[in-house]
């Protein structure tokens, strides 16, 4: 397997991990206005994400950074082409990022409501925008022979793009609900499971709809038709979809969440492998797509970066797992009284 292909796979995996991790806190933020009734419950949301959200978000920085490092021309075309969408995403993430630190700092209901609103927008909008962006990547965007994007933000808001946006919102909301089930107690925990159960059929239905839509709107299935064995990858999201319902029904929150992670990760990988070897297909002509071949960095860079990744990523995973294990317990009343709590 050549370096370009190895990096393509790592690139896909990085996006999948990012969606699995930031997916639950973006989902949780989206659910805030629907599930949190009291001030304590709202604070539980913030503290459920507290130790993790920043470390989760760095997977986005890394996915972007790796796109830059391994496929710089793709990074350049993607980020400049999808300018408006990425700026909206950026601003949403910015206003989300400050909520955690700011909300508890002033004892005013209006102040807290402002940051709750910002958390909601800063969670819902990124989910929607990421879904729109990736659906458009799966579909192909109008890049011409000079690799210049011949469209606007509204080009991206086509039916398939919007379907992708809704897909991500549903996936993340469901994922966030299960995280809340892990990190809460009593009535809030019950409502979290209930929300997951309510979302499940809508999410499952939408996944099917999206897959069918993909058959008509994209070339995603062509790789799978050529190498049918690759369809095995669908076992991951489908298996996850079934098991998350099974575990949630048994109130096994961690297992249900892990299965939900498989749904998200599997869906991302399915899409990424569908566009291989392109990273940014062109809807104008396959000859204009950004591919491994026309956008990869030099072999020297790819090999050094591989060495860096093989050394550091396992270490990162190890200490992030340690973080999750240290703070695996539900957020209790005592936790809310902790001096440094959000």
């Amino acid at each position: 397997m050549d370096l370009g292909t190895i990096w393509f796979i790592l690139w896909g995996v990085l996006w999948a991990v990012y969606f699995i991790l930031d997916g639950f806190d973006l989902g949780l933020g989206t659910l805030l206005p629907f599930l949190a009734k009291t001030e304590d419950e709202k604070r539980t949301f913030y503290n459920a994400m507290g130790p993790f959200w920043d470390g989760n978000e760095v997977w986005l920085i890394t996915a972007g950074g790796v796109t830059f490092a391994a496929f710089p021309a793709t990074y350049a075309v993607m980020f400049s082409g999808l300018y408006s969408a990425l700026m909206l995403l950026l601003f949403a993430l910015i206003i989300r990022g400050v909520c955690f630190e700011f909300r508890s700092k002033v004892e005013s209901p209006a102040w807290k409501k402002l940051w709750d609103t910002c958390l909601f927008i800063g969670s819902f909008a990124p989910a929607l925008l990421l879904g729109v962006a990736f659906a458009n990547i799966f579909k192909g965007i109008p890049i011409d022979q000079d690799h210049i994007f011949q469209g606007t933000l509204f080009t991206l808001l086509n039916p398939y793009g919007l379907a992708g946006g809704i897909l991500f919102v549903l996936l993340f909301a469901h994922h966030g609900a299960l995280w809340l089930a892990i990190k809460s107690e009593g009535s809030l925990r019950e409502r979290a499971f209930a929300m997951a159960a309510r979302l499940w059929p809508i999410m499952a239905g939408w996944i099917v709809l999206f897959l069918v839509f993909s058959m008509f709107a994209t070339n995603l299935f062509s790789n799978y038709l050529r190498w049918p064995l690759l369809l095995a990858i669908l076992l991951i999201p489908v298996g996850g979809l079934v098991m998350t319902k099974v575990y949630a029904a048994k109130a096994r929150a961690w297992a249900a969440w892990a299965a939900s992670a498989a749904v998200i990760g599997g869906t991302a990988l399915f899409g990424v492998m569908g566009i291989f070897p392109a990273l940014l297909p062109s809807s104008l002509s396959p000859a204009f797509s950004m591919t491994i071949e026309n956008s990869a960095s030099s072999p020297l860079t790819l090999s050094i970066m591989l060495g860096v990744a093989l050394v550091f990523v396992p270490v990162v995973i190890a200490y992030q797992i340690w973080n999750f294990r240290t703070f695996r317990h539900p957020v209790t009343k005592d936790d809310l009284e902790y001096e440094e709590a959000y």
Partner: protein
Amino acid sequence: MDTLMLSRLQFAFATFIHFIFVPLTLGLSILVAYMETKYVRTGDETYKKMAKFWGKLFLINFALGVVTGITLEFQFGTNWSRYSMYVGDIFGSLLAIEATAAFFLESTFIGVWVFGWKKLPKKLHAACIWIVAFAANLSAVWIILANGFMQNPVGYVIRNGRAELDSFFAVITNGFAWSQYIHTVVGSYVLAGFFVMGVSAWHLLRKQNIDFFTRSFRMGLGFALVASFVVAIQGHSHGNEVARIQPAKLAAMESHWETGTHVPMYLLSFPDEKNERNSVEAIGIPSMLSILAFSDPAAEVKGLKDFAPEDRPPVALTFLSFRLMVGLGTLMIILTVWGFLKRKNLLDNPGYLKLMIWAIPVPYLALQAGWAVAEVGRQPWIVHGLMRTKDAVSPIAASQVAVSLAAFVVVYLLLAALDIYLLAKFARKSPA
């Protein structure tokens, strides 16, 4: 206003705002870690309160550093796509390493530190904030190695229409970049020291929590005193490198027009760019510029007229930024020495304490001025000698950039104002 100008303004604005918050993160993380270590070693609860008090201010500041940082990674691609394509082989790798090696470490362990006071054993908890301090200072290495490549490109070969990596070793041992790094982080330590001194001074003037804030003031003082000398001395040697490697920048920094030897330095000077001369030139110290730039009074210092007009940086901005930075740097040395002399009886020096409150913004201005010199002085190059800024911008509509620039100005100024409001609010509180 075209895409180029708007993108330049946007990048400059976004970076300046980011750099309001980063230096305090770099320096205060070390101070807080030190305070918590003193607590773990001595069991003295005052040190624990110090770690929590200054830690809270650290966190308020850190939040803005994080969110404004995401913008910068995006911006290379959004607004400087041609640059990204040209140097991504090298520049992109450095950014990816910054994220993998440092950002993950910093963002994960800050979460553990914030939430883990009661959950972790004391030593492990203290270790967490040391890791955050280390990770923050490590992330600066990678981004400054990246900027260093823009200033002094090394370890590359032009192939396939782009700069490709030829020697990773050369890129990461780029002396110019390491010099910039030391100058930046040590300058950040001065800023952190002044922040702690200024806030402490506010409390000491009101005779509140005297022991707590005297200890804090002295810690900030020690940190800033050493750092302000180091940054000046090391800054001088970095200036020598600039003279050698970026002669046009050096000429602009000093508004020096005519190449010559035994070049004097004018304490009072003002550029007249249109006429390629200085409108004011007074109090000249003979041979001083040659000595400062090359440690040799007979050394030839290239003047701006040696460079084609399109190869010269904006002179007035570079020149004024440099003078501002040096002037404020000198002021900070004076203030820290004064503080050192008065350290045993701060309360008897209310004038000094009041001055130190007003001095909090001084290092902030100095650091921004320094970056203005580095970046404006590098123009018209985005990669010195290899790629011009005007050839680096994304082929996108100016209207898009106008909108995003406006949004940055509004959102950033609002958030920065809120952050400063919260910093002031919690700085004034009495420690628990």
